């Protein structure tokens, strides 16, 4: 734990906290809007973006942001209905991932860079990258606060929300962008392959325990923070194991406890 005085560990802790709050906030809406597959799709393609960024000039984080945003735009443009959306995500994901592999085969740098994108390397975040993550993260959280109630209305009771004049297309669009940005940030901590462990699992665990939207959001954030920060601290203690392992482990553990403790009620 002596590491906690080191800048690299403090940066990592800050990033992990921010990412957990973002994921905890969007998780319940991902479940309500049935967008788990969209989360997976955008994160896989953040990988393609990161590979492109790496190849073009050593900017994996910037590339990942661009990649995720392009995919969010495509998902928004291709399908608004749920079934259509899932199919189009599948199509884009498969092609995009192939493209990522191709891009990576041109890359002559360290091969660990590729695994870092896939499985996360929070300790490698530089000061400049951290500043970018903080700015985007704070913007996402503020936006979520602004649209919280209308997004809840639009997600759970769309027919009446539309009748009340809420801008449904705008809300879906904004949420897709928020999702893409969050997924990209989370990928820095747990890697593009394991984003779901922060963006879905905590909210899914919270969903087992409560039906109240506000409590759902609070629990989801608390669970995501526990997994993210807890996993990071554990990996500082056992420094041969990547934080990703601990984060996904804690996250799954929380879900398992929530699942088992409500098994009889459901």
């Amino acid at each position: 734990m002596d590491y906690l005085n080191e800048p690299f560990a403090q940066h990592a802790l800050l990033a992990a906290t921010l990412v957990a709050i973002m994921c905890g906030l969007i998780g319940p809406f991902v479940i309500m809007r049935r967008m788990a597959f969209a989360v997976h799709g955008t994160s896989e393609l953040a990988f393609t973006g990161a590979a492109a960024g790496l190849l073009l000039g050593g900017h994996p984080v910037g590339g990942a942001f661009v990649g995720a945003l392009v995919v969010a735009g495509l998902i928004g443009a291709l399908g608004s209905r749920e079934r259509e959306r899932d199919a189009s995500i599948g199509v884009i994901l498969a092609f995009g991932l192939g493209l990522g592999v191709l891009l990576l085969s041109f890359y002559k740098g360290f091969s660990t860079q590729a695994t870092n994108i896939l499985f996360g390397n929070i300790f490698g975040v530089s000061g400049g990258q951290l500043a970018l993550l903080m700015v985007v993260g704070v913007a996402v959280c503020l936006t979520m606060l602004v649209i919280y109630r209308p997004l809840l209305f639009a997600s759970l009771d769309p027919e009446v929300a539309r009748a009340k004049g809420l801008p449904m297309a705008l809300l879906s669009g904004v949420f897709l962008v928020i999702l893409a940005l969050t997924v990209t940030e989370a990928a820095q901590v747990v890697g593009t392959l394991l984003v779901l462990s922060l963006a879905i699992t905590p909210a899914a665990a919270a969903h087992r325990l409560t039906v109240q939207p506000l409590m759902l959001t609070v629990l989801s954030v608390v669970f995501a923070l526990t997994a993210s920060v807890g996993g990071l601290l554990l990996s500082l203690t056992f420094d041969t194991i990547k934080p990703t392992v601990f984060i996904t482990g804690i996250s799954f553990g929380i879900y398992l406890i929530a699942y088992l403790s409500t098994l009889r009620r459901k």
Partner: protein
Amino acid sequence: MTDLTVRLHSASLKLGGRTLWKNLNLNIAPGEFVAVLGPNGSGKSSFIKTLLGLHMPTAGQVHILGGTPEKARAHIGYIPQQKAFDRDIPLTGRDLVALGVTGTRWFAQFTKPADAKRITAAIHRVGASRYADKPLGQLSGGEQQRLRIAQAMAAEPQLLLCDEPLLSLDITSQQQVAALINDQRKLGTAIVFVTHEINPILPMVDRILYLVGGKWAIGTPAEVLTTERLTKLYGAPVEVLNVHGRILVVASNEHALTEPHDAYHHHVVHDEEHA
């Protein structure tokens, strides 16, 4: 005449190249109960969507409370078709009602005490206090629809638009929900009620708007639901039967013109056979 709740002046609506209704003139006064009837696809739901400002009339004017539907939105309540919520939807009954009051507000904030009071009062008025704090997805269709009425009424609308609110409810719930909607007129709220089955609400209705294939008829039930009037409207021989105080609209070839899944109709016919 700004004290009218709804004013349609030679309004027409075309959707996908098809004229749903043409040159429609209709004034609805505060506290009035207007039923909208007609076969499937005759533009009943589109009529409600026009009053909500979701469809623009292709010709003529639609005024609500003296202005455009968009401007009047805060004063319009909407009850959609009864469709069961997902069993695990993360909402309690009270949360659903609350969305009707606070769901359109930007910037997260805690519910104000005055709003909480309105929400509780609306739940009380529809008799849903006992189960309002239970998970919404585990309530019955009738209970969910009562909460829908509370959701619409909590915002104290001057116009209540109901799109087939009794569909798929059992007969007892149908009567209770219809009576509850009718109760809202005491507050001066005008009601537009789309239905394919007039009988559960027949005693409450002031006027009927009957839409058929681009044409329409307006009047009291006694004026509109006659063999002559509907035969003219359908452009085909139609008979209006009064069976034990229930109205049946039947084509001369003895096929009911109301939809085949019209449970009430079958019920009445069934009773007849045993009479």
